């Protein structure tokens, strides 16, 4: 049974339904694989007992003919999701020992459909990072290595643990979150597929907040179909999150493999950056060719405010974060470093509890909201945001069905490689992805090929609001042309 972990989520689902093996067997196979892969540091907590218990219950439901949509399928959960009684720390020191008494809506949806929890996945602290190096629990190692190299690479971030775990076959699929690219960039760096759904598609209730107006939950999985299956279960309207949207959740899986004939695909000229590596450009062209050959119509479009997206994002997101993270004050839960008075306690706790990147963003956010700076920064950034949204509305109104861009400006880089670099260089990883969050749109990252060094590269498809289905159709068309990508197991 050693190759149970090589099955996709859809395959495992069908095999469980056919009773080819049990949920407990499948779970045990994953628990064993996880143990072998600890060098990747993808999990910050493994929950084997809970996993076996849930798998056993799944087997009972399968036997009783009451299987849910994800019955018996083992998943990893990003540490940002509140999981009842289980380590939930957003990979921050400041949430030391925190185990919530509640379950996030999205993970509860998964369990309600029969999924099995393997453990909590590593991530950048409070989802702030693009390399998973800011985690209090240490960097995650990308299962991919450059050809002939044993240099450890980053899996991207902030959902680095999720992407690495899916790529390394130590979960069938994973939950992730995306505030500026945190699903799509790590998916691209690990040869996996990930979708950031439309803002409001998934409930944010029980997700440790980073930037409330940008945060969105989504899955990372092995291919477009698995991603579609997971999103179907994760998405829901939630009375506890008034920004969630009350629209029916379509059968995303049905969109897989549909014809792309006649779909109009926009190619935004502003995404052709100066100094972009030739192989990224080539990858993009390859995606264009694939879709054109499959019958889609390719049109050149302009999203004129794209260049303002990244700077505006780095005002809006830190501003919201500076306020969202104020609750970590040492008073009620998590870390407390005593002090001579309350202010001293706050300062000691937050100085010790937050990492450098989180502190940087809290400071930026505090600054841009300060009296006298608000209009110049936050208000202006919000205006930019409106313009970015309008850019997209204009092209969609002109008949474009989806937009194709590269997912990242480069392949995965080495752990520590950018440690001394200007933080802005790290922020540039999100240059293709932040616009989507600023506009609240859905964005899918699909692997489209390997770099000359043998590392996966991804493309991004951006859709109309709540039209994730078209993205799955297009993503599956690219996947059909290029196949899927699996790292060589070296661990």
């Amino acid at each position, binding site marked *: 049974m050693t190759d149970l972990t090589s099955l996709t989520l859809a395959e495992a689902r069908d095999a469980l339904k056919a009773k080819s093996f049990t949920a407990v067997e499948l779970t045990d196979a994953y628990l064993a694989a996880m143990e072998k892969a600890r060098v990747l540091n993808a999990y910050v907590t493994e929950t084997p007992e809970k996993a076996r218990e849930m798998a056993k219950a799944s087997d009972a439901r399968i036997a009783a003919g009451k299987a849910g949509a994800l019955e018996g399928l083992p998943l990893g959960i990003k540490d940002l999701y*509140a999981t009842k009684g289980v380590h*939930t720390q*957003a990979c921050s020191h400041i*949430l030391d020992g*925190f185990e*919530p*008494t*509640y379950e*996030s809506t999205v993970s509860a949806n998964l369990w309600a459909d029969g999924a099995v929890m393997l453990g909590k996945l590593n991530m950048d602290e409070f989802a702030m990072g693009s390399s998973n190096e800011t985690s209090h629990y240490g960097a995650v190692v990308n299962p991919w290595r450059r050809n002939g190299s044993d240099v450890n690479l980053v899996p991207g971030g902030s959902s680095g643990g999720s992407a690495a775990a899916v790529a390394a076959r130590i979960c069938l699929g994973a939950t992730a979150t995306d505030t500026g690219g945190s699903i799509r960039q790590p998916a691209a760096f690990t040869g996996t597929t990930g979708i950031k759904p439309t803002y409001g598609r998934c409930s*944010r*209730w*029980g*997700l*440790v*907040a980073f*930037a*409330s*107006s940008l945060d969105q939950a989504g899955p990372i999985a092995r291919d477009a179909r698995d991603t579609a299956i997971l999103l179907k279960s994760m998405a829901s309207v939630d*009375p*506890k*999150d*008034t*920004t969630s949207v009350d629209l029916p959740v379509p059968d995303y899986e049905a969109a897989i493999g549909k014809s792309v004939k006649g779909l109009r695909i926009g190619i935004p000229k502003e995404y052709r950056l100066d100094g972009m590596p030739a192989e990224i450009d080539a990858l993009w062209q390859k995606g264009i060719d694939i879709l054109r050959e499959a019958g889609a119509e390719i049109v050149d479009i302009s999203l004129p405010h794209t260049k303002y997206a990244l700077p505006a994002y780095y005002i809006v997101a830190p*501003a*919201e974060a*500076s*306020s969202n*993270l*104020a*609750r970590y*004050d040492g*008073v*009620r*839960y998590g870390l407390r470093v005593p002090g001579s008075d*309350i*202010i001293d306690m*706050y300062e000691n706790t937050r100085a010790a509890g937050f990492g450098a990147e989180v502190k940087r963003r809290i400071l930026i956010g*505090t600054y841009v*909201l*300060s*009296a006298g700076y*608000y209009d110049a920064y*936050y208000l202006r950034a919000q205006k930019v945001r409106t313009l970015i949204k309008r850019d997209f509305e204009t092209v969609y109104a002109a008949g474009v069905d989806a937009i194709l861009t590269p997912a990242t400006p480069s392949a995965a880089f080495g752990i520590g490689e950018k440690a001394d670099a200007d933080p802005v260089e790290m922020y540039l990883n999100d240059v293709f992805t932040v616009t989507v969050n600023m506009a609240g749109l859905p964005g899918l990252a699909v692997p489209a090929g390997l770099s000359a060094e043998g590392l996966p590269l991804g493309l991004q498809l951006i859709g109309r609001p709540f039209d994730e289905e078209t993205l799955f159709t297009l993503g599956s068309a690219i996947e059909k042309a290029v196949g899927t990508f699996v790292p060589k197991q070296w661990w």
Partner: protein
Amino acid sequence: MNMAVRTPDPKKLIKGATGDWEIIIGLEVHAQVTSNAKLFSGASAVFGAEPNMHVSLVDAAMPGMLPVINEECVAQAIRTGLGLKAEINLYSVFDRKNYFYPDLPQGYQISQYKQPIVGEGKVLLDMPEGVVEIGIERLHLEQDAGKSIHDQHPTMSFVDLNRSGVALMEIVSKPDLRSSEEVKAYLAKLRTILRYLGTCDGNMEEGSMRADINVSVRKPGDPLGTRCEIKNVNSMRFAAQAVEFEARRQIGIIEDGGKIDQETRLYDPGKGETRSMRSKEEAHDYRYFPDPDLLPLELDPAWVESLKANLPELPDEKKARFVANYGITPYDAMVLTLERASADYYEQVAKKRDGKAVANFMINELFGRLNKDGKGIEASPVSPEQLGAIVDLIGDGTISGKIAKDLFEIVYTEGGDPKKLVEERGLKQVTDTGAIEKAVDEVIAANPDKAEQAKAKPTLSGWFVGQVMKATGGKANPQAVNDLVKAKLGIE
């Protein structure tokens, strides 16, 4: 109305060494919304539970929790806005006011900053010199904070989050008030309106109504002076005292050649003084920004209309109606409408009766007696039916006004049907002129000197009336006694 329009009233000016000073006052009243649940969580908003018994995950700001607006609190704010004759903003926004404090778990208070739910309105004050209109600047909804408790442990402070997240309405007046009397009258009137609407219980001692008072002084006609804000005053008396003290303090400083620093102050009722809490320089930068967890609040105009249609009659309208329908004075109408329960009581009795007589009896006898016992009208031992019966007995001449007082006291303390009591206890007014004449004759005969004097000084007849009333145990019809005394004494 605004401060530019209001002409200084010489009687309200304060005399200083350098001349008269005008006090300019604006109030921010925090009124706790009457609702079962908190503003953004399902936790109970009821006062008086054991510490931390009414705390939801949202109130404690657990990671990943989100606020969900409580529709009833929004309705209450709209009702209040309508009661203040204010503009209802169909589009309003919740903002975060960021600051660190242990009783503020989120590290920010959800409030409304630039776009409040209610805009400009007004409150009318019945002052001795006439009606004074005070402008309302705005009303917004916000969360209350929890409570820090410093007296439970030698080195630590405790936090009670029961109040954390309870809905407050901040009602901001324009700087239209000019005296401590007006401050008291404004707070009283606001409380009356809130209680009529049922949107706040107005209990200042329980903290469900608190006021921040902005005070500045100027020479009449001068531009506005620098203001100080007196925080968190929780009684009308203290509010008036604080204003008086603060105005004199500021006048003293300016007259001594000093300058007023804009600052936040606290009133110490024990010492009767205000003290500096923090200066403008120490003021927080609250870093307001729209709360991204909450969509802007967009109201359906039809819903606002339906709330308006179901609004109770408000004190000013009720007062005007009482004056028109019952022929009572505006002052009596004001007194009777201070509380909705009193007004309801009055109407129950005054219907089909002489409104004036009922008003007099209620204000002089019932209110006086209830006050003495520290009781509210709801706890009155005398029911409207009983009170009505007493008024009827006076009206048809069965008992005199004086006896009515005694009868009222009996009904108040012992209860019973006033009509029966009159029969049983022989309280009926004596209208038999024969009996009265006899009593008059006896008194005159016993006091021949006084009778002689009265012929010269007719006002002395009052003494004889008193004696006759006394002799008849108060039961004689006073008018009949009066007539007979005058006739017998030969006074016209």
